């Protein structure tokens, strides 16, 4: 069952590659949050119930409701255009993300470790590199943030792989999630929306060496 969910997670990365609208990205993020919720429920059977409840709450409330809703609000408030305006055509994105997944699977095949389910490793690394690729090839600041959130979801998957033995690490991951997201989203998208009317990274190139 966990395998099915994680593979669905992987498929959602392909979907992100060919999606055009920012709202679609937000829906995918929310969907990934729900997937993670179920994975946590099935995977972390051995940790104490209070901690488990906390983690479940974080995935369902924070990842799949609060963050996407807030991003949608920012989108609306700042009149950001709906298209994501990638530098590369979607077809190329799809091929590159396929490459990323294939390479991580090959890398995972080299791993001999009884402590780790390989599928966690594949999903985590794929979403890490997909997120980085996303940041590098999209024009808007808000899509950079979405790329970052995809990376965080991947990291969360990885922390679940060792979660039963070390619940502390999952909690640390949640702390990272909340801290970084609040810092990035809460303070800045608001401010940047006020100061820079149309949010494009092209406008963030005035800091130069002269």
């Amino acid at each position, binding site marked *: 069952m966990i395998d099915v969910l994680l593979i669905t997670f992987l498929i959602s990365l392909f979907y992100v590659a060919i999606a055009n609208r920012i709202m679609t990205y937000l829906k995918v993020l929310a969907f990934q949050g729900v997937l993670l919720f179920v994975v946590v429920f099935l995977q972390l059977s051995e940790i104490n119930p209070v901690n488990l409840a906390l983690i479940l709450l974080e995935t369902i409330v924070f990842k799949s409701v609060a963050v996407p809703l807030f991003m949608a609000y920012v989108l609306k408030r700042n009149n950001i255009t709906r298209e994501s305006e990638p530098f590369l055509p979607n077809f190329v994105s799809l091929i590159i993300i396929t490459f990323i997944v294939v390479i991580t699977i090959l890398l995972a095949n*080299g*791993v001999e*470790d*009884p*402590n*780790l389910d390989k599928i966690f490793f594949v999903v*985590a690394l794929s979403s*890490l590199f997909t997120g980085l690729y996303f*940041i590098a090839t999209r024009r808007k*600041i808000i899509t*950079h943030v979405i790329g*970052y959130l995809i*990376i*965080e979801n991947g*990291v969360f998957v*990885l*922390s679940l*792989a*060792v979660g039963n*033995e*070390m619940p*502390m*690490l999952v909690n*640390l*991951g949640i*702390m*990272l999630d909340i*801290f*970084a997201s609040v*810092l*990035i989203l809460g*303070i*800045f998208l608001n*401010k*940047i929306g006020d*100061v*820079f009317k149309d949010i494009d990274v092209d406008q*963030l190139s*005035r*800091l130069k*060496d*002269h």
Partner: protein
Amino acid sequence: MIGIYLIAAFLISFLLFLNRNKIISFVLLGLFLALQGSLTVYAYLNFSSTELIYFTYDSLAILLLLTLGIIAIPAFLHSHIYLEDQPAPAQSRAIYYAAVVLLITAISAGYLANHIAVIWIFTEITTLSASALIYHHRNKLALEGTWKYVFICAISITFVFIGILFLSLSLGNASSDELSFKNLLANSSHLNPFWLRLSFIFIFTGFTAKLGLVPMFTAGIDAKDKAPAPAGALLSSVLMNLGFVGIFRFYVVIANTPLHHWANLVIGIAAFLSVFVATVYMVKVKNLKRMMAYSSIEHMGLVMLGIAAGGIGYYAAILHIILHAFVKSSMFFQFTQLYRVYQSKSIYEVGNYFKYNTTGAMVLLLGFISATAMPPSGLFVSEFLIFRSMFESNQIVLLIAVLLLLTMIIWAFGKNIFKILFIPPVMFDDSNVPVISPWESATQFALLALAVYLGLNPPAEFVELIKESVMMLPN
């Protein structure tokens, strides 16, 4: 003590954030300095004891705490002068002081932490407080700098977290799950090399954002450019040392495994590229503050080259990082005076500094001599030892390449500094140049002199502490 320190410091920071009264803020800042001083003294007296499980007063931490404590005093002094000169709204002042206190607290706790996850948490807090400092001016450029800094630091702390996860996987077959450095060191023979490799790459990449090495150095440059210069002094000295601590403590673990040579290779490549990148930018940069920031990148590159070379290089690296902190913070403090004279950062628009502020010009000249490691600068000693260690470990080709790059850096640095000192500026109206009291430069001279003293004639205890902090490394 560390518990009291953390609670009291967070409390002071919070009160500074709420407070709008100047006198109360002086009292609070004085209290904080006293607290910082007593932590340092306490750490020295309770050498190598552990408190609250996660904090150990070891030799590296004591050395860097001492450095931080010394730099903190002029940092507050110059922050005060800076905020008097460029009046900010009471709210920005309050946020500024609160953020500086929070930054220094987080850095101190990060130095003392003996557990990789704890260092990681305090590194996150430094990102938060540094971003408040960078956004001090509340304008478009400051926002751009802050955004870039926060975003890159967020990615890099995520990288460190991934590294920690891999590290926990590499502990898989070891007896204990605890991720403290002591435990890792004790179990170093059981660590799974595959996971350890991945872990080292991620943790190293993550901490380079704070240390200022390739690949994540860019964020720090914009940050030091946009933050007020007294805060920039902290960012470019003690905060970089925190990145060093993060990498160094993990490096000690990995140096005791068969991956030692591989780790040296990774560090060496990143370090050489950093020196190279610093050279490229130093040659073309026209913004004085950014030039000093790139010079920090160069120095961190040299430090890591020393680490990668090993032998006497370990000693030299620790010495270099301490001396560099003194010299670079002194130059950043001097920059506040220079900016008051010219109201500009561009090298085109400043010049003939000796005429307008003789004492300040002396600091700049001596700072240049120190930063380029010419004798009698203390950095000369540490750089010389780094080169010697590279020579001894048969990295002749690398050494020659680095020396060539350094020559270009000295040329570019010198060209710009002498332009500032002697060549009259174009289109500069000197009718209302403010008179700057020579006493304001006293702390800057003191920092430079300290760097010379510690380099040329280090006290025996200082040498002993450095030797002890590299004791766990194989030769």
